[in-house]
Protein backbone atom coordinates (compact mmCIF):
# COMPACT_ATOMS: atom_id res chain seq x y z
CA UNK A 1 0.00 0.00 0.00
CA UNK A 2 1.29 3.46 -0.84
CA UNK A 3 -0.59 6.57 0.04
CA UNK A 4 -3.45 6.22 2.56
CA UNK A 5 -7.03 7.53 2.78
CA UNK A 6 -6.18 11.01 4.07
CA UNK A 7 -3.38 11.06 1.51
CA UNK A 8 -5.84 10.28 -1.24
CA UNK A 9 -8.16 13.07 -0.06
CA UNK A 10 -5.24 15.53 -0.10
CA UNK A 11 -4.21 14.23 -3.50
CA UNK A 12 -7.76 14.63 -4.86
CA UNK A 13 -8.06 18.20 -3.54
CA UNK A 14 -4.79 19.25 -5.12
CA UNK A 15 -5.49 17.51 -8.43
CA UNK A 16 -8.94 19.09 -8.65
CA UNK A 17 -7.45 22.51 -7.99
CA UNK A 18 -4.76 22.00 -10.59
CA UNK A 19 -7.23 20.74 -13.19
CA UNK A 20 -9.53 23.70 -12.54
CA UNK A 21 -6.62 26.10 -13.01
CA UNK A 22 -5.63 24.40 -16.25
CA UNK A 23 -9.22 24.72 -17.47
CA UNK A 24 -9.28 28.40 -16.46
CA UNK A 25 -6.06 28.89 -18.37
CA UNK A 26 -7.81 27.36 -21.41
CA UNK A 27 -10.43 30.11 -21.23
CA UNK A 28 -7.66 32.50 -22.16
CA UNK A 29 -6.84 36.06 -21.34
CA UNK A 30 -8.83 37.22 -24.36
CA UNK A 31 -12.01 36.87 -22.32
CA UNK A 32 -10.64 39.43 -19.83
CA UNK A 33 -11.07 42.16 -22.43
CA UNK A 34 -14.76 42.03 -21.59
CA UNK A 35 -15.16 43.94 -18.35
CA UNK A 36 -17.96 41.80 -16.90
CA UNK A 37 -16.06 38.62 -17.58
CA UNK A 38 -12.86 40.05 -16.17
CA UNK A 39 -14.66 41.22 -13.06
CA UNK A 40 -16.19 37.76 -12.51
CA UNK A 41 -12.81 36.13 -13.16
CA UNK A 42 -11.18 38.47 -10.65
CA UNK A 43 -13.71 37.51 -7.99
CA UNK A 44 -13.09 33.84 -8.75
CA UNK A 45 -9.36 34.40 -8.54
CA UNK A 46 -9.79 35.87 -5.05
CA UNK A 47 -11.64 32.68 -4.07
CA UNK A 48 -8.90 30.58 -5.65
CA UNK A 49 -6.31 32.48 -3.62
CA UNK A 50 -8.23 31.59 -0.45
CA UNK A 51 -8.30 27.94 -1.47
CA UNK A 52 -4.60 27.95 -2.32
CA UNK A 53 -3.66 29.40 1.04
CA UNK A 54 -4.86 26.09 2.48
CA UNK A 55 -2.35 24.09 0.41
CA UNK A 56 0.26 23.90 3.20
CA UNK A 57 -2.41 22.48 5.53
CA UNK A 58 -3.48 19.95 2.91
CA UNK A 59 0.15 18.88 2.53
CA UNK A 60 0.56 18.80 6.33
CA UNK A 61 -2.35 16.36 6.52
CA UNK A 62 -0.64 14.20 3.92
CA UNK A 63 2.64 14.28 5.85
CA UNK A 64 1.03 13.59 9.23
CA UNK A 65 -1.04 10.76 7.90
CA UNK A 66 1.90 9.17 6.07
CA UNK A 67 4.01 9.28 9.25
CA UNK A 68 1.18 7.87 11.36
CA UNK A 69 0.84 4.97 8.93
CA UNK A 70 4.61 4.43 8.92
CA UNK A 71 4.61 4.29 12.72
CA UNK A 72 1.71 1.82 12.66
CA UNK A 73 3.67 -0.35 10.18
CA UNK A 74 0.92 -0.01 7.61
CA UNK A 75 3.17 1.01 4.74
CA UNK A 76 4.64 -1.83 2.74
CA UNK A 77 6.48 0.25 0.18
CA UNK A 78 8.12 3.28 1.75
CA UNK A 79 9.67 4.41 -1.50
CA UNK A 80 6.35 4.40 -3.30
CA UNK A 81 4.80 6.51 -0.54
CA UNK A 82 7.77 8.88 -0.70
CA UNK A 83 7.31 9.26 -4.47
CA UNK A 84 3.61 9.98 -4.06
CA UNK A 85 4.20 12.52 -1.30
CA UNK A 86 6.90 14.21 -3.41
CA UNK A 87 4.50 14.37 -6.34
CA UNK A 88 1.87 16.16 -4.23
CA UNK A 89 4.39 18.67 -2.90
CA UNK A 90 5.43 19.35 -6.49
CA UNK A 91 1.79 19.74 -7.48
CA UNK A 92 1.19 22.16 -4.61
CA UNK A 93 4.14 24.29 -5.74
CA UNK A 94 2.94 24.27 -9.36
CA UNK A 95 -0.51 25.48 -8.27
CA UNK A 96 0.89 28.26 -6.09
CA UNK A 97 3.20 29.42 -8.87
CA UNK A 98 0.37 29.35 -11.40
CA UNK A 99 -1.94 31.43 -9.18
CA UNK A 100 0.78 34.00 -8.55
CA UNK A 101 1.26 34.25 -12.32
CA UNK A 102 -2.47 34.74 -12.81
CA UNK A 103 -2.54 37.54 -10.23
CA UNK A 104 0.36 39.22 -12.03
CA UNK A 105 -1.47 38.92 -15.36
CA UNK A 106 -4.56 40.50 -13.83
CA UNK A 107 -2.40 43.29 -12.49
CA UNK A 108 -1.16 43.90 -16.03
CA UNK A 109 -4.82 44.44 -17.02
CA UNK A 110 -5.23 46.96 -14.22
CA UNK A 111 -6.94 44.68 -11.66
CA UNK A 112 -5.31 44.34 -8.29
CA UNK A 113 -5.78 41.00 -6.53
CA UNK A 114 -4.31 40.71 -3.06
CA UNK A 115 -2.51 37.61 -1.89
CA UNK A 116 0.80 37.18 -3.69
CA UNK A 117 2.81 37.68 -0.49
CA UNK A 118 0.63 35.18 1.38
CA UNK A 119 0.92 32.70 -1.51
CA UNK A 120 4.71 33.05 -1.54
CA UNK A 121 4.71 32.51 2.21
CA UNK A 122 2.53 29.40 1.73
CA UNK A 123 5.02 28.16 -0.85
CA UNK A 124 7.93 28.63 1.58
CA UNK A 125 6.05 26.87 4.39
CA UNK A 126 5.29 23.94 2.09
CA UNK A 127 8.95 23.74 1.05
CA UNK A 128 10.06 23.64 4.69
CA UNK A 129 7.54 20.92 5.51
CA UNK A 130 8.66 18.91 2.48
CA UNK A 131 12.29 19.16 3.60
CA UNK A 132 11.33 18.04 7.13
CA UNK A 133 9.39 15.10 5.79
CA UNK A 134 12.16 13.84 3.52
CA UNK A 135 14.75 14.39 6.22
CA UNK A 136 12.70 12.05 8.39
CA UNK A 137 11.37 9.49 5.92
CA UNK A 138 13.55 6.33 5.77
CA UNK A 139 15.41 5.83 2.52
CA UNK A 140 17.10 2.55 1.68
CA UNK A 141 20.79 2.15 2.39
CA UNK A 142 23.02 2.22 -0.64
CA UNK A 143 25.36 -0.71 -1.31
CA UNK A 144 28.27 1.46 -0.15
CA UNK A 145 26.51 2.40 3.08
CA UNK A 146 25.70 -1.23 3.78
CA UNK A 147 29.30 -2.37 3.24
CA UNK A 148 30.54 0.54 5.35
CA UNK A 149 28.18 -0.48 8.18
CA UNK A 150 29.42 -4.10 8.04
CA UNK A 151 33.01 -2.91 8.19
CA UNK A 152 32.17 -0.64 11.13
CA UNK A 153 30.73 -3.63 13.01
CA UNK A 154 33.87 -5.67 12.29
CA UNK A 155 36.06 -2.81 13.52
CA UNK A 156 33.92 -2.65 16.67
CA UNK A 157 33.02 0.98 16.06
CA UNK A 158 29.52 0.77 17.49
CA UNK A 159 29.01 2.37 20.89
CA UNK A 160 27.07 0.46 23.55
CA UNK A 161 23.68 2.08 24.13
CA UNK A 162 24.22 2.65 27.87
CA UNK A 163 27.40 4.56 27.13
CA UNK A 164 25.97 6.40 24.12
CA UNK A 165 22.86 7.61 25.96
CA UNK A 166 24.85 8.59 29.05
CA UNK A 167 26.98 10.77 26.75
CA UNK A 168 23.88 12.22 25.10
CA UNK A 169 22.38 13.06 28.51
CA UNK A 170 25.73 14.46 29.69
CA UNK A 171 26.03 12.12 32.68
CA UNK A 172 28.05 9.01 33.54
CA UNK A 173 26.73 5.54 32.80
CA UNK A 174 25.60 4.80 36.38
CA UNK A 175 23.66 8.06 36.63
CA UNK A 176 22.01 7.33 33.30
CA UNK A 177 20.95 3.83 34.35
CA UNK A 178 19.54 5.22 37.62
CA UNK A 179 17.57 7.72 35.59
CA UNK A 180 16.16 4.90 33.48
CA UNK A 181 15.08 2.96 36.57
CA UNK A 182 13.45 6.07 38.06
CA UNK A 183 11.54 6.59 34.84
CA UNK A 184 10.39 2.98 34.76
CA UNK A 185 9.18 3.25 38.35
CA UNK A 186 7.34 6.49 37.55
CA UNK A 187 5.65 4.79 34.59
CA UNK A 188 4.39 1.97 36.81
CA UNK A 189 3.14 4.34 39.52
Amino acid sequence: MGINTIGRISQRQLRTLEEALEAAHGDGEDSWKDEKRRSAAARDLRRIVRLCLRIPETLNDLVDSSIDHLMAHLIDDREETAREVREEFNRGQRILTRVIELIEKFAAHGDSIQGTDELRDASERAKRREAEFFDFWPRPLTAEEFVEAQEAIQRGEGIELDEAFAQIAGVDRETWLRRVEERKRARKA
Partner: protein
Amino acid sequence: MSYRVTVQPHVGRKIAGWGLSDGVLVEVWINLREVLPTAPTMFLRRASEPFDGMNFEFWMVDPENRFRVHSFAFQAVYGQDEETILIVRGAYMRREGV
Protein backbone atom coordinates in the same frame (compact mmCIF):
# COMPACT_ATOMS: atom_id res chain seq x y z
CA MET B 1 18.66 -15.01 22.07
CA SER B 2 19.12 -11.33 22.80
CA TYR B 3 21.07 -9.19 20.36
CA ARG B 4 23.62 -6.57 21.27
CA VAL B 5 22.52 -3.20 19.89
CA THR B 6 25.10 -0.50 19.29
CA VAL B 7 25.02 2.89 17.58
CA GLN B 8 27.46 4.53 15.24
CA PRO B 9 28.99 7.65 16.85
CA HIS B 10 27.37 9.98 14.31
CA VAL B 11 23.93 8.59 15.26
CA GLY B 12 24.64 9.35 18.92
CA ARG B 13 25.57 12.91 17.98
CA LYS B 14 22.40 13.21 15.94
CA ILE B 15 20.20 12.05 18.82
CA ALA B 16 21.95 14.56 21.08
CA GLY B 17 21.00 17.28 18.59
CA TRP B 18 17.29 16.48 18.79
CA GLY B 19 16.99 18.24 22.15
CA LEU B 20 14.82 15.53 23.74
CA SER B 21 13.67 15.82 27.34
CA ASP B 22 15.05 13.25 29.79
CA GLY B 23 11.70 11.42 29.82
CA VAL B 24 11.62 11.01 26.04
CA LEU B 25 15.32 10.14 25.86
CA VAL B 26 14.79 7.32 28.36
CA GLU B 27 11.91 5.99 26.26
CA VAL B 28 14.14 5.96 23.18
CA TRP B 29 16.79 4.05 25.15
CA ILE B 30 14.16 1.55 26.36
CA ASN B 31 12.98 0.94 22.80
CA LEU B 32 16.49 0.45 21.44
CA ARG B 33 18.02 -1.31 24.44
CA GLU B 34 15.19 -3.43 25.80
CA VAL B 35 12.45 -3.75 23.19
CA LEU B 36 14.39 -4.21 19.96
CA PRO B 37 17.05 -6.78 21.07
CA THR B 38 14.52 -9.22 22.48
CA ALA B 39 12.66 -9.74 19.21
CA PRO B 40 14.39 -8.01 16.33
CA THR B 41 12.63 -10.11 13.72
CA MET B 42 9.34 -8.78 15.07
CA PHE B 43 10.34 -5.12 15.25
CA LEU B 44 12.78 -4.67 12.41
CA ARG B 45 11.28 -4.27 9.00
CA ARG B 46 13.34 -5.12 5.97
CA ALA B 47 14.29 -2.28 3.67
CA SER B 48 14.97 -2.73 -0.03
CA GLU B 49 16.80 -5.80 -1.20
CA PRO B 50 19.62 -6.70 -1.53
CA PHE B 51 21.34 -4.56 1.12
CA ASP B 52 19.59 -5.96 4.14
CA GLY B 53 19.03 -2.64 5.81
CA MET B 54 16.36 -2.82 8.48
CA ASN B 55 13.94 -0.19 9.81
CA PHE B 56 12.79 0.27 13.37
CA GLU B 57 10.09 2.86 13.85
CA PHE B 58 8.19 3.85 16.95
CA TRP B 59 6.38 6.82 18.38
CA MET B 60 5.30 8.11 21.75
CA VAL B 61 3.13 10.78 23.26
CA ASP B 62 5.21 13.28 25.20
CA PRO B 63 5.06 12.35 28.90
CA GLU B 64 4.63 16.03 29.80
CA ASN B 65 2.44 17.21 26.93
CA ARG B 66 -0.16 14.85 25.56
CA PHE B 67 -0.69 17.01 22.47
CA ARG B 68 2.91 16.45 21.40
CA VAL B 69 3.92 13.31 19.53
CA HIS B 70 7.49 12.14 19.00
CA SER B 71 8.18 9.83 16.04
CA PHE B 72 11.46 8.00 15.51
CA ALA B 73 12.80 6.09 12.53
CA PHE B 74 16.03 4.17 12.98
CA GLN B 75 17.85 2.14 10.39
CA ALA B 76 20.01 -0.77 11.37
CA VAL B 77 22.06 -3.62 9.95
CA TYR B 78 22.78 -7.04 11.39
CA GLY B 79 26.41 -7.91 11.91
CA GLN B 80 27.77 -11.04 10.25
CA ASP B 81 28.29 -12.49 13.75
CA GLU B 82 24.47 -12.58 13.99
CA GLU B 83 24.74 -11.19 17.51
CA THR B 84 25.10 -7.50 16.79
CA ILE B 85 22.72 -4.91 15.45
CA LEU B 86 24.29 -1.61 14.50
CA ILE B 87 22.11 1.49 14.28
CA VAL B 88 23.41 3.41 11.29
CA ARG B 89 20.83 6.15 10.91
CA GLY B 90 18.27 7.89 13.02
CA ALA B 91 15.55 10.38 12.24
CA TYR B 92 13.14 12.20 14.48
CA MET B 93 10.04 14.28 14.02
CA ARG B 94 8.10 16.16 16.68
CA ARG B 95 4.53 17.03 15.87
CA GLU B 96 2.07 19.12 17.81
CA GLY B 97 -1.68 18.60 18.07
CA VAL B 98 -1.73 15.44 15.98
